[in-house]
């Protein structure tokens, strides 16, 4: 016999779908089927059932092989590494729950670490812009029920957030958007003809690296000022048309992704996009929202911000919180050789960072806490496998619109495995002893 767990939350992307149904064996030990999730979400659940899963911490030996050790020994190793370092880096945090993040931050404060999440290589630039000029935003529910002008700028939800358009932004029939897709105008700005762009009413095929100019040009059009004939590869006429489409809506939203946050101009792109949103509010109601990637990167920003005042790249080395991406951000810290220990949890820098930074991780004392075997666990000295967050343990996560959602546990982890939070508590208690803190 099996049982079906309903209203399960998907711990994969920032859409954080909360309508999944998961079929598990009667003893709650095996997960057999997943309904309602997209392909990537389904994979995440099924992956927890992999037969070759590592279930105990492993320490790298001199000859390069792994030796299985106990969780207690792993906690001792991690605590010693962090307590000895002059400037340890504690990176990741985006694929775990807020409870674990909070314990991690306690450790960081005691050892004087730099704490950073995956925003450092993703939407961190968004956070810089938000700090610079604020952000008029809303929830995904409001978009579903009200939005009739949808802009996707430098993002491709068809692939990266597969259920975003069907649950919230394009297809659903909401309270004031009863005709679903027909009640909405969809504009996509992307240098490539993506699968999202193919669905658009208007596709602005912007020249690469010229988003800042194009955003500026739309604002110039809103002010009815002179424009050059072509901006960023788009004719002025077209830019004025798009400005008019935006103005004529009742409720508009700009969604944006890494196509603008990590290309030339970075935070300035977002800064200008927020300024455009503000500008459009002189004519109608407009909002803007980042398409956050990891399911709980938003939560990491929230927890860091309420504990230390800054949402990412926080440097606690001098006993108080400092924040200045470029100085305190992970890529810079690694590339410049500013840190002497690397702790990774809930992210895979080994797969995503520039090779020079990955080499640096390989040189440092390092611990990687991750349910999977990843390129990061591959270059780390200690790999601590843990229970899958959102599958084998619940906890809190924040959706891309800053709405907190409690995740559900659907199956038990393999016998004897710890969760992120449980392991971190062991480390924290040991660090407390080492640092002599009461």
């Amino acid at each position, binding site marked *: 016999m099996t049982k079906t767990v309903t209203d399960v939350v998907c711990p994969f992307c920032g859409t954080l779908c909360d309508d999944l149904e998961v079929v598990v064996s009667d003893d709650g030990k095996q997960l057999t089927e997943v309904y309602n999730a997209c392909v990537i979400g389904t994979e995440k659940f099924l992956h927890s059932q992999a037969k070759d899963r590592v279930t105990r911490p492993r320490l790298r030996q001199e000859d390069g092989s792994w030796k299985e050790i106990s969780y207690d020994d792993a906690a001792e190793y991690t605590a010693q590494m962090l307590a000895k370092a*002059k400037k340890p880096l504690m990176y990741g945090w985006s694929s775990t729950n807020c409870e674990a993040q909070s314990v991690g931050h306690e450790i960081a404060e005691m050892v004087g670490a730099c704490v950073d999440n995956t925003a450092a290589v993703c939407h961190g630039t968004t956070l*810089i812009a938000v*700090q610079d000029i604020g952000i008029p935003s809303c929830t995904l529910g409001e978009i579903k029920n009200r939005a009739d002008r949808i802009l996707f700028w430098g993002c491709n939800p068809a692939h990266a957030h597969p259920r975003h358009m069907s649950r919230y932004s394009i297809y659903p029939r909401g309270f004031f958007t009863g005709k679903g897709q027909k009640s909405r105008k969809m504009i996509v700005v992307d240098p490539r003809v993506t699968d999202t762009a193919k669905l658009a009413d208007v596709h602005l095929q912007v020249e690469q690296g010229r988003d800042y*100019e194009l955003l500026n040009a739309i604002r110039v059009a809103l002010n009815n000022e002179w424009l050059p004939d072509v901006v960023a590869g788009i004719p002025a006429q077209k830019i004025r048309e798009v400005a008019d489409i935006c103005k004529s809506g009742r409720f508009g939203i700009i969604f944006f992704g890494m196509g603008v946050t990590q290309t030339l*101009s970075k935070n300035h792109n977002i800064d200008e996009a927020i300024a455009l949103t503000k500008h459009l509010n002189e004519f109608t109601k407009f909002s803007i929202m980042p398409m956050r990637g990891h399911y709980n990167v938003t939560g990491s920003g929230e927890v860091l911000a309420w504990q230390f005042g800054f949402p990412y790249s926080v440097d606690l080395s001098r006993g108080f919180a400092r924040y200045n991406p470029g*100085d305190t951000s992970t890529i810079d810290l690694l590339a410049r050789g*500013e840190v*002497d220990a690397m702790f990774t949890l809930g992210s895979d820098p080994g797969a995503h960072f520039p090779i020079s930074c990955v080499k640096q991780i390989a040189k440092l004392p390092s611990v990687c806490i991750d349910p999977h075997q990843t390129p990061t666990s591959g270059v780390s000295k200690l790999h601590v496998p843990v229970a899958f967050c959102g599958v084998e343990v619940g906890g809190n996560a924040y959706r891309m619109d800053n709405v907190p959602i409690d995740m559900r546990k659907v199956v038990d982890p393999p016998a004897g495995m710890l969760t992120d939070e449980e392991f971190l508590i062991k480390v924290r208690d040991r660090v407390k002893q080492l640092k002599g803190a009461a």
Partner: protein
Amino acid sequence: METVTITMKNQPALYLEADNVAPDKFAGKTAPQIAELHVYEGNTTSTLGKYFEVAGNAGATAADTRIVVKGDVKKVKYLGMKMSAGELVVEGSTDLYAGAWMSGGTMLVKGNVEAFAATGMKGGELIIEGNAGNYLGSAYRGDWRGVSGGKILVKGNAGSDVGQYMLGGEIVINGNADVHVMTHAEGGKVTIKGNAKSKLGGQLVDGTIIVFGTIDVMMPGFKFVDNVELEVDGTKAKFAHFIGDTGERHKKRKGQLIYGNLYKKI
């Protein structure tokens, strides 16, 4: 004026935060007292004397104190931070935040500086004989009140984000500048004697940009007004005059909108 010379003897394993190396902090102290000032390497606090040889006593006040920094200080941050008077000479290149928040006095760097030099500067003079990194003379992260006074001269090139949120003061770059010059600025002046790339004056409210060389791509929010004759740093030449950013908000004076100005040599 008394001179204190500090010479790097023990390189830090990581990076050193030396925000106490400024005439204001040295003033009234003898060499042994100066060697006792704190420096920070990661989470470890130690003394200046552990890393530097200190020679000479400081003057009674900051204005009477001249500091000369010798040796390799490429991994030293915050030299000259918050200095208000006196002199600081760095014989080589240095790291982040050179002369950050300085309000007076003169700082001379004979080599290059990395990012965030003269962050939030209020006054005084910073001269960089080599190149400057990104965010030269910009606001501190998240602050909308940037550089409000003082003078910066870079003899080489500058990185991106020169003069972000600038309110006043002057920056002269003898070489080239990377993208984003005076973003969000509401005053002040940046002169680029070499070439500029793009995104000059984006979201500019007020202030002046002068470019002697080429501009790869102009912002769409800048419109041509007329050609004018200008004298810049003793050079008389003809410049094309643009105003902008026309997409941005602007203040009004006597019923007239006040724009930022961009002059490009022709």
